[in-house]
């Protein structure tokens, strides 16, 4: 199965390199523009992993790769799980990269060049690194949910419908988040104390990652269940 994971990553190496370069450019650009790096880089991480998954499934669909693999002595589980594992590996890689990028941009470049929001941050480097880790972890949990939904749809409905439906899901999520933030800003509502405390602690990101992992595992199991019942042609 590791061969399949490696094959997926090798196959998407050009796209991965492109997304990493874009992430680095965004982080540097925002630092020099004296803006917050974290949220945008985390968003870029989400889109990059989504882009990788879409490219990988598009290639599989275009070349009939799943049928090719089905002709080999491979179990259905190996074919399905390998796709989930390769996307997970890429997601973890991007999360680590995004975290490192934000720490470098906000912890070193910002203060040394006296740029960005972190230039005069009272917290030390370790505090900043911890704070960024919590943000990245929260985004990572959400990313796993999006990827689980997309990959499950890919195995159940095929590439074309999965890509179309997932675009709708992502746009819907974006619209809901934007609308909620607009409503809160307009109403000048302060979140309750417990919510603010939760936001500062490690519990919320940990909860997000755990929930993401649970949904990811459920998506994988659902895909396998479906694949074992459907025809591959």
């Amino acid at each position, binding site marked *: 199965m590791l*061969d399949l994971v490696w094959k997926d990553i090798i196959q998407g190496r050009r796209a991965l390199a492109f997304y990493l370069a874009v992430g680095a450019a965004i982080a540097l650009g925002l630092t020099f523009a004296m803006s917050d790096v974290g949220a945008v880089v985390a968003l870029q991480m989400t889109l990059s992993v989504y882009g990788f998954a879409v490219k990988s499934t598009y290639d599989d669909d275009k070349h009939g790769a799943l*049928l090719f693999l089905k*002709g*080999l*002595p*491979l179990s259905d589980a190996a074919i399905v799980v390998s796709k989930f594992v390769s996307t997970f590996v890429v997601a973890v890689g991007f999360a680590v990269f995004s975290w490192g990028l934000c720490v470098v941009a906000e912890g070193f470049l910002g203060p040394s060049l006296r740029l960005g929001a972190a230039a005069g941050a009272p917290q030390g480097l370790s505090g900043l690194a911890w704070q960024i880790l919590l943000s990245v972890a929260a985004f990572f949990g959400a990313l796993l949910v999006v990827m689980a939904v997309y990959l499950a749809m890919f195995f159940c409905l095929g590439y074309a419908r999965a890509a179309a439906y997932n675009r709708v899901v992502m746009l819907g999520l974006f619209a809901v988040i934007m609308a909620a933030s607009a409503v809160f800003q307009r109403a000048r509502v302060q979140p309750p104390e417990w919510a603010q405390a939760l936001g500062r602690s490690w519990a919320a990101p940990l909860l997000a990652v755990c929930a993401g992992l649970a949904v990811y595992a459920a998506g994988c199991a659902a895909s396998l269940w479906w694949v074992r019942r459907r025809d*591959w042609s």
Partner: protein
Amino acid sequence: MAVTVAGTAATVATEAAAVKGARELAEAPALMLSAVGKRYPKFELKDVSFVLPRGYIMGFIGPNGAGKSTTIKIVMNMVRKSRGTVKVLGLDHVAFETEVKRHVGYLGEEPHFYEEVSPAWLGGFVGKYYPTWDAGFYRATLRRFGIEPSKPVKALSKGMKVKLGLALALSHKPELLILDEPTSGLDPVVRHDVLAELMSVIQDEKRSVFFSTHITQDVEKVADYVTFINEGRVVISDVKDDVLARWKKVSFPLPLPPYARGASDPARIELGLAEARERVERAMRGALGKAFASHKIDGLTFTGITRAFSGDVEREISQLAETRPRVIPVSLDEILVAIVRGSETC
């Protein structure tokens, strides 16, 4: 002591059972389908049954949409069967899927590969899944087929991709080779190469080939067994030479009644002809008709293709025709047409 003896006896019995099981597997047919069915909204595969013994080539013939690819995909567990049993090399094709596929070489109707990679990379990737993979044989086969190992797969022509698929399917020395329309859409030279490769595969008597096609000439050239499928149903499955011995084209002039023979009156001739035609048609609706897959009466001549030619059938036809009929061999192509036309008539 008694326990040790009992334990030894049990071990010996287990080993004997294992040896017996292994021998049975080794002697089991290469491929056996029994009452296999699959239901789609607009098509149904109905009770497909046939057996391919080890060491032989079977051609699976049928028109487009007859169910050839569906049957092959069922064998490869790409399509889930609705009912029936499939045994590949003596093993259930679903319960022992990966084990079965280690001993099977498969090439689909449309060869699917990763297009961005090279044949050399593909060989390395595929080889990891087969304990019996022979990298030297794979390289030699690519060379023999004229395939550049470092060129991306997407740069290969359709014929070259089929050859690449064949090289991949052969390089782990499969006991059974399953090919879905391998020669379809290929030029005559590549077709010849592919068929020659199939012939060389069965030089090893333990290896078998099952391939589907609608090009009956390919089957005539290389197959030992032939299975015809039409509208989801197996019509014939037998040794090719036996099929060709049973299926014959029979023709005879219509036996005019005495009053019409040598008559010059057109009305009388017409009446005699109608009577002769009616007589032959009546015979065709009876027991004799069951021996024919298709027939037609064109002017003064009856022509039919019989599926069960024998001395008795020839005698019956001679009695009907009042003369010895003309019997000529038929090709698999004509048999296929007779089967399809026959079912259309029905």
